[in-house]
C-alpha cells in the first residue's frame, strides 16, 4: 500500500480516532499526539492491514489501548498532570453563553464517568456505532456494553436534571 492509498483508507475514521482519544485524554494536544501515534502504528502495520476485516475497528482498538496506556503511565508517575484546554472563550451573547455552558456541563459530566463508560458513550452516542462493533472494539460482550451504556446515560441524566432544575425544586 502506498501513502496515497493509506491516506484514503484512513480519512473516513481519523476524526473518530481523534475524538475517542480526546474523550479519554481530555486535552486536544494530547489527543492529537495520540492520533498521530495511532496512525503511525497503522502505517507500520501497512502490509498486514488487509488481513483485518475492519481497519476502522482495529484502529479504534489501538486508540483505546494507547490512550489507556498513556493514562496509566501518567498516573504511575509522581506528577499528576491535569489536562486542560487553555482556549480563550469568546465573549458571546447571553443565550449563546447559556447554551455553551450547558453543553460544557454535559462534557464535564461525561468526563467524570469511568473510562469504559466514557468509551462506550463516545462510540455509541457520538460516533453511532452498532453495539456489535463496540463490543468488538472493546473486547466485551454486547450485554455488558448495553448495561454500561445505560448506566452512563442515566448518570448524565441525573446530573443534567439536577442542574436543569437547580433552584426550582
Amino acid at each position, binding site marked *: 500500500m502506498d501513502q496515497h492509498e*493509506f*491516506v484514503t483508507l484512513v480519512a473516513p475514521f481519523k*476524526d473518530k480516532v481523534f475524538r475517542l482519544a480526546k474523550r479519554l485524554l481530555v486535552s486536544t494536544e494530547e489527543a492529537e499526539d495520540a492520533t*498521530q501515534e495511532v496512525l503511525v502504528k497503522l502505517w507500520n502495520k501497512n502490509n498486514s492491514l488487509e488481513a483485518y476485516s475492519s481497519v476502522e475497528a482495529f484502529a479504534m482498538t489501538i486508540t483505546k489501548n494507547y490512550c489507556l496506556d498513556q493514562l496509566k503511565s501518567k498516573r504511575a508517575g509522581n506528577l499528576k498532570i491535569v489536562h486542560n484546554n487553555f482556549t480563550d472563550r469568546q465573549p458571546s451573547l447571553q443565550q449563546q453563553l447559556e447554551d455553551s455552558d450547558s*453543553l460544557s456541563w*454535559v462534557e464535564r459530566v461525561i468526563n467524570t464517568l469511568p473510562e469504559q463508560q466514557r468509551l462506550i458513550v463516545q462510540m455509541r452516542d*457520538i460516533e453511532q456505532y452498532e453495539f456489535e462493533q463496540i463490543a468488538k472494539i472493546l473486547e466485551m460482550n454486547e450485554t455488558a456494553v448495553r448495561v454500561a451504556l445505560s448506566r452512563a446515560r442515566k448518570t448524565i441524566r441525573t446530573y443534567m436534571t439536577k442542574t436543569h*432544575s437547580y433552584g426550582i425544586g
Partner: protein
Amino acid sequence: MESDKIETLIEKYFQGETSIAEEKQLQDYFSAPNVAQHLEQYQPMFAYFSQTRQQQFTQAVPLQTKKRNVAWLSVAASVVVLLGVGTYVYMNDNSSREETMGTYDDPEVAFRQTQKALAMLSAHVNTGIEGVQYLKEYEVAKDKVFRK
C-alpha cells in the same frame, strides 16, 4: 412528532435499548426548535453529542517514511566516514614514503637548501640573543649598587 412517543423513546434510550435509527430520531427531535418544555432538560445532551461529532483532526497525517530515511542516512554517513579514513590513510602513506626516500637528489641543491635552513636558524637565534642583551644592563646596574 408527538412528545409521548418521544417519552417512550427516551425511556428506552436510558435503558440502552434504542437502535441507531431510534437514536437518530431523538437527535432530530432535540435539534429541532420546538421541544416540549418537560423534555428540554435532555436537549443539551443531544446538542453536545451532535456538536462533538463535528470535531475534526486537523493535523497532517504523519506519513513519514522515517525508517527508510534513517537507513539511507546511516549508509551516507558510513560512506563519508570511510572516505575520510581512506583519504587520511592514503595521504599519510604518501608523506611517509617521501620522507624515507629523501628530499633532494642533487647534492648542490641539498647543500644550498641546508645552508638556507641553517642561516634562517641562526638569524632567529640571534634575534633571541638580542632580546637577552638587555639583561646585561641589569647586571651593570646591579654591580653599581652592590659594589664588591
